[in-house]
């Protein structure tokens, strides 16, 4: 068995993604120039350019999926970490400290749980001034037999 984790971007999240790319590369023209020179060494530039170009088209939709072999996710998942994912899916929390307060938990343990979730790409930490803002990267989690995606 394996686990699939989905995220579908809303229009606001698509705008945020475009702003993130703008912050990183200034403009799509800049990025194009950069990847023309450096595409062999840094293929991610090509992907970022293709994503940005597609996002600029009207009605563009963006989805993200993470596929984990079930053992991996269950070894790291705990009720407290599930609670964090659940909370972040419906709350815009400004920092890890604020999250710890909202969940009535100790800061250190919350921080450790966030780090573990970041490692599996279930959460992203966005730099927001002095704080790191935790954002859930999850909409749905489903389990499927390996053969569905061609895993031997």
């Amino acid at each position, binding site marked *: 068995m394996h686990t699939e984790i989905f995220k579908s971007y809303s229009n606001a999240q698509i705008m945020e993604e475009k702003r993130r790319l703008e912050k990183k590369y200034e403009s799509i023209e800049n990025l194009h120039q950069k990847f023309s020179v450096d*595409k062999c060494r840094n*293929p991610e530039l090509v992907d970022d350019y293709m994503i940005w170009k597609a996002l600029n088209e009207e*009605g*563009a939709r963006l989805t993200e*999926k993470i*596929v984990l072999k079930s053992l991996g996710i269950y070894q790291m998942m705990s009720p407290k970490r599930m609670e964090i994912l659940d909370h972040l899916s419906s709350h815009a929390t400004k920092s890890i400290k604020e999250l710890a307060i909202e969940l009535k938990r100790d800061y250190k343990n919350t921080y450790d749980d966030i780090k573990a979730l970041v490692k599996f790409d279930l959460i992203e930490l966005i730099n927001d001034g002095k704080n790191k803002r935790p954002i859930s990267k999850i909409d749905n989690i489903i389990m499927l037999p390996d053969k569905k995606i061609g895993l*031997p």
Partner: protein
Amino acid sequence: MVEIRKQRIWIHKNEILDTLEIEKEGKIKYFSYTYKIKGKNGKWIPGVRWDNLEQAPHVDRYDENNVLVEQKPCREKPLKEVIKLVTIFRRNLMTMDVSEL
């Protein structure tokens, strides 16, 4: 309507397959499937990558210093086939003639 699909498949603790597919009017216009390994600094570095940039499907092979060592044209591969190759050969892909697979 343009659909952008990003996917990360965990092959092992230190190995992933990052995929990107951009679909327009039901056809995949652009794809990239990149097998990555975790470097000593904790960053993901590409090992082998299939993509169809400029409508020319090819496969790139990188060394552990993130330097492109080989680029060869190959037939367009469906994602399922790439997943199978990556899960079977894993790190060995980095020393194989992947375009022949």
